[in-house]
């Protein structure tokens, strides 16, 4: 049967999939395989009468690999490969689960498996994280700019405010021509900032 027109080769890698819990491949497992194939064929239109005895296995090797073919009820002709392929593809998941295997460890050569479509979340994760980081950065920039503006406004207002409070100041620094004789003492008393500006160096008499 090997290489026959409607025959398919199957390869199982039980040890790879299950490691220590691997089961041995014997005639009972073959019976289960035939049952699964017959079950898959029964789901196809016009093939509801497929029996387990219609599925033939041969060339079972140590690898574990074998060939199988499905015959019609008369047992004279084999079913076309396209139908068998279609049936297996539709029920691939059930067949895999019966043997605790997956698409890679239970291979039907010549029958491509349907890949899982990619599950894209509605909003990609990177956009969410980007949004968080960007908002933090913008808020920080605005805060820094505002604090810079406030600092500058305080610096500008500083000398002009002290001008108004000049009369209230209890300043005992001796003054001559508007320039204090003592060096500016910032440690004690009120410092009259008005006298620090260079404009006042020469006061009109």
């Amino acid at each position: 049967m090997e290489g026959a027109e409607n025959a398919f080769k199957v390869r199982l890698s039980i040890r790879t999939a299950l490691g220590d819990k691997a089961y041995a491949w014997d005639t009972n497992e073959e019976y289960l395989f035939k049952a699964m194939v017959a079950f898959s064929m029964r789901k196809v239109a016009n093939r509801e009468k497929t029996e387990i005895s219609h599925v033939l296995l041969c060339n079972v090797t140590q690898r574990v690999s074998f060939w199988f073919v499905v015959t019609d009820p008369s047992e004279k002709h084999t079913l076309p490969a396209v139908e068998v392929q279609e049936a297996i593809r539709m029920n691939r998941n059930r067949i895999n689960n019966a043997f605790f295997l997956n698409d890679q460890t239970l291979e039907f050569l010549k029958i491509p498996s349907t890949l899982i479509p990619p599950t894209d979340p509605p909003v990609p994760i990177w956009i969410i994280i980007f949004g968080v980081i960007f908002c933090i950065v913008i808020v920080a920039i605005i805060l820094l700019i505002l604090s810079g503006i406030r600092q500058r406004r305080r610096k500008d207002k500083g000398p002009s405010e002290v001008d108004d409070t000049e009369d209230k100041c209890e300043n005992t620094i001796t003054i001559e021509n508007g320039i204090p004789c003592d060096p500016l003492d910032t440690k004690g008393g009120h410092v009259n900032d008005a006298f620090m500006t260079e404009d006042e160096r020469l006061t009109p008499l």
Partner: protein
Amino acid sequence: MALAPGPDLLGDGSGDERPKWDNKLQYLLSCVGFAVGLGNIWRFPYLCQTYGGGLGCFTVSSLIGIYYNTVLTWVLWYLLNSFQNPLPWSACPPDRNLTGFVEECQRSSSVSYFWYRQTLNVTADINDSGSIQWQLLVCLVASWAIVYLCIIRGIETTGKAIYFTALFPYLVLTIFLIRGLTLPGATEGLTYLFTPKMQILQNPRVWLDAATQIFFSLSLGFGGHIAFSSYNPPRNNCKKDAVTIALVNSMTSLYAAIIVFSVLGFKAANDHGRCLDRNILSLINAFDFPDQSISRDDYAAVLAHLNVTQPERVAGLGLESCHLEDFLDKSASGTGLAFIVFTEAILHMPGAPGWAVLFFGMLFTLGLSSMFGNMEAVITPLLDMGVMPRWVPKEVLTGVACLSCFLASIHFTLHSGNYWLEVFDRYAASLNLVIFAFLEVVGIVYIYGMNRFCDDVAWMTGRRPSLYWRVTWKVVSPLLLLTIFVAYIALLARAPPSYRAWNPQYDQFPTQQENVYPGWVQVTCMLLSFLPVLLVPAVALAQLLVRHRRKKKAALQDMHLKPQDSGAC
């Protein structure tokens, strides 16, 4: 009685003092952060593996600032994509019929596909610009915003940010060191790193590459170090600082090489194991041996036995040759190391998303601290030259600088952006910096005068520089720089400049196709290489002319005054 002018009032009439570092640590960290950049991580280990001027500076720094941030953009994109399990570059996406994987991905690898197609969406030719990759544009905006946030008030803000951006990479490197050394295969990688290959060491190209690497690694010639140092107090032990920065930079490169090579050793061992597994599977399937009957250790013996008994069948299988050295030899540097080799290695580590976040976070902070230096080298000259009127706050100046650099760097988010980045990296950065450094050394030692300079250093540090410094400044450094320059020119002149293109239609794909740059791109390369350098003689000429005209004017005025004087008597 006038107030004695103190040091604060010198030069700045409006009361705006020159900013100062909060402490010495901030200065050192900034210089180290500036010097220690992406190159320490991905260029130095590559070299180990294969063998064993102020307007010009400003131009170069601007050019580099423009494209360097594009690399940060890519790193940010990968960082944002690392917060998911499984990582997006771990598997190929299925094609439209869901029967197999996308062909381009299948032929190359899932990591290469994610880099070239899903990140860059690269075209096959530099002429074919394509459109803007909007994901990269969005990340570019974010990374320029982060840079602006950190340099908004000059060193006042960078000084704070540098604590994190300069120290975090060392923390991550240490974590990777512990993880890397415990991975299987790490020892092979480290042996490979430290075993010198004597015949390769005799190749002069090795030493040339070593010299260029240490030169570029220290980030000299940008004006960044000059800018940072200008914020130090005048009496500063600059000799100790220079030695510290150079030592820390080299130690970091070595440290990074150890880590990179343990991870590469792990990856090579992994790839070797999988190569063996593929061969074993072919043998098992062809000869119908029981599943898992041949272990990796038995493979050689079984293959030898089969070669004797059934040589034709074995030959017909097309088995690959699996040697560990071949996998270790697969060298990569630059973007190849970070985005392809390392990302693949991370996939095989348990807890992959965490490692990816750490790795790309480290790369981002490394690049960020280098960007501080770059932007400082651009903004400090602008501030000192008084380009903007005094009442304009510094935040606006830095904002304008960042905005213009951002607009210029949009070009790199096009589909051909990667090729343009290579052009900038190869031509804007290399020759100019070597020439500037050469001119700086020669200018100070021969024109300003060695004795005058030694006096200045003695005033700053308290001691005259020793014979070692004088000999290196006078002879060794200029000679080395000249050699590097001549060698570079010779290499460039040997063949027409070409680049490697990612072309899925190429018959030898996934090997990259070697294309020659079209004429107009070659002209751009020339301009990038020589325009900044030409600014040096241009400005010198301009200053000469101005001085000449001033002298003439002074001479004319003298002539007019003399007859009047005699008349007044």
